[in-house]
């Protein structure tokens, strides 16, 4: 047996938690409506308790994503919320803003801290810095290449988490850009939400085959990638490197799709763990995903093998 590799999935409801655990998730990442952002659904306090209970029965760890941009207003209820999470038995809190780190260290030092700087988590020195501040895991930026991730891992003093599947965020503004645009056109949105369920997307003139989902919620406007990362074919590189947690972002995907994705990655991880020397990628794992893939969204390697310049 090699070391344990966790399979983390974002879940939007208790039903999703149950389905994803059945499919093979070993970590569930959930969020609430205030401190969470771009999560598939938002959990009430009682649902958080229930999710932890469901997880404990299956030896699955439940983690809170608290990576929203923090304002003064959001600080007021933060201590109580952290105390609640401690009481609920949440295993870890994923943070981006130092205010969340400080609150967890003060009010619930037993809760693990994971640093998810979103686009900021780009190097090992910074990850290790947050490690010295109390974080035990870093979620690598989705814009890193495979080489960068492997080098990052070599120098890390804390655990590494890598998103292996799903869409990614490209842009977050506090502005209400869709609402503003519709007002500018003289056709304001009268009722109905501009949130993710609306199915809004942008098309850029030179890239008409790409659909970029856009939505508005109380935290502003979000634009998402037109493709879905899928690194299943090369998962062994990340397994060999000893990446501790592989994240599947189930955001804006049907449960049936996420379930298939989890099963595919679970099969790969289990096969590797059983005998790393004999591990071979199997096309049928990927086919499970392809069958349910939105025909308008390409499965790609994301930034894993893309040269970026500046």
């Amino acid at each position, binding site marked *: 047996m090699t070391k344990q590799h966790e399979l983390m999935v974002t879940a939007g409801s208790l039903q999703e938690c149950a389905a994803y655990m059945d499919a093979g998730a070993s970590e569930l990442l959930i969020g609430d409506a205030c401190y969470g952002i771009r999560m598939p659904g938002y959990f009430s306090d009682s649902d958080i308790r229930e999710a932890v209970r469901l997880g404990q029965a299956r030896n699955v760890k439940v983690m809170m994503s608290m990576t929203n941009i923090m304002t*003064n207003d959001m600080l007021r209820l933060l201590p109580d919320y952290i105390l609640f999470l401690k009481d609920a038995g949440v295993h870890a809190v994923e943070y981006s803003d130092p*205010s969340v780190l400080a609150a967890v260290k003060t009010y619930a030092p037993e809760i693990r801290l994971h640093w998810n700087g979103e686009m*900021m988590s*780009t190097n090992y020195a*910074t990850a290790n810095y947050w490690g010295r501040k109390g974080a035990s895991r870093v979620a690598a930026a989705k*814009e890193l290449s495979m080489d960068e991730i492997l080098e990052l891992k070599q120098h890390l003093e804390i655990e590494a988490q890598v998103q292996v599947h799903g869409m990614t965020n490209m842009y977050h503004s506090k502005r209400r850009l869709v609402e503003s645009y519709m007002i500018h056109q003289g056709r304001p949105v009268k009722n109905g939400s501009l949130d993710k369920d609306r199915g809004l997307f942008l098309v850029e003139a030179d890239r008409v*085959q790409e659909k970029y989902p856009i939505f508005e919620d109380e935290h*502003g406007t979000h634009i998402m990638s037109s493709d879905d990362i899928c690194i299943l074919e090369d998962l062994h590189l990340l397994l060999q490197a000893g990446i501790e947690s592989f994240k599947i972002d189930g955001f804006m995907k049907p449960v049936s799709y996420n379930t298939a994705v989890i099963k595919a990655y679970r099969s790969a991880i289990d096969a590797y763990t059983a005998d790393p020397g004999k591990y071979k990628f199997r096309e049928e794992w990927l086919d499970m995903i392809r069958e349910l893939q939105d025909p308008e969204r390409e499965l790609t390697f994301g930034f894993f093998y893309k*040269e970026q310049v500046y």
Partner: protein
Amino acid sequence: MEEVLSKPIYRGKRVRLEKPELLAPAGNLEKLKFAIHYGADAVYIGGQKYGLRSNADNFTFEEMREGVEFAKKYGAKVFVATNIYVHNEDIDGIEQYLRSLNDAGISAIIAADPAIIEVAQRAVPLLEVHLSTQQSTLNWQAVKFWKDEGLPRVVLGREASLEEIAEIKNNVEIEIEAFIHGAMCSSISGRCVLSNHFTDRDSNRGGCCQSCRWKYDLFEDGRDREEESDMAMQPAALKPGITQLPLFEEEDHAFTMGSKDLCMLEHIPDLIEVGIDSFKIEGRMKSIHYVATVVNVYRQAIDAYFEDPDHYVLKPEWLDDLHKAANRPLNTGFFYDIPDHEDHIYEPEEKAAPYDFAGLVLEYDEATQTAVIQQRNFFKQGQEIEFFGPKGAFFKQTVHEMWDEEGQPLEAARHPLQRIRMKVDQPVAYFDMLRRKH
């Protein structure tokens, strides 16, 4: 006393306030000199590495030394932006680079990434570290965190409102720097990788290609939709067989994220009274004319306020001056409210500012009432030009006689950087500028 000071202070109950620093961008050595001569207390520049403007001129260490020397004469400071999100490959050179900045006499770096902050604190402890806006700091606990880490100053995210800034100032004793003028990321700073996706250029290492100002079409997915959309226009066949519902009509402006530029000139008292310690102007890529004009207008406004806070009024000519150099519509960002439909640029943009920087005054000869001008843009006899200097625009005149260096009469100034002697109606001085409406 301490408590009174730390609360937002309104007119009539004012206690002594510190004059804020006016911090200006300087894309190159010449811009640095103009920014400082026209009234900046400090400038921020980019070096050859670790900055977010890989297209800008950027300073060599030699130029930095010269810039620092120049600044010293005015009692001004030079900061260097080292505000990228560091990648593994960037780590090795950080210490050497920061030592060189320190040796060049730089007062502070503006950094976003702890990978740079930590090295600076260890290797060059006398070099101040200011936390960059790229950390999107909007709350006082985060500000306190960075203060406890030893940072003397935090540049807030551009989304901070005056009220939020007041709360931060009330809770943490630290220098707060805020953008008060210039172009703005419409995203939360750093939370944008549009360039990475569209063009494989890393926006957070200086490769931003301003994709937020591109034009987009907004659609609603028509698949699986049973009820009729209340927003969509006619279905469009973007791809065969799939229903895309456009949320715009043929003649509509396209969707964009592009923001109007920030301008807080009309709200100087609010900025001072809330206690912002450093007023930051954006624009390392902007022209000398722009930097000199914008810096100068804010210099005059701040000084006028401190001369007599109770009778401070905005002078219309300051706004006029600003508009001579500005090329985008202006707004107040997030200071008072979240920007709305009037705060974004849907119309085609006017590219050029209404005025050109036509020439720079090098010398003035009182006896002959002539000046030696370095040509910066075309002008000719009979045209109206305007002189402005560190005290603002001070007179207009028609271009009369001009001569080249050999004393040959000139009808027009055609050659870049040519030295031209011309008759001037009023005394002028080195560093004064000529501008001309196009």
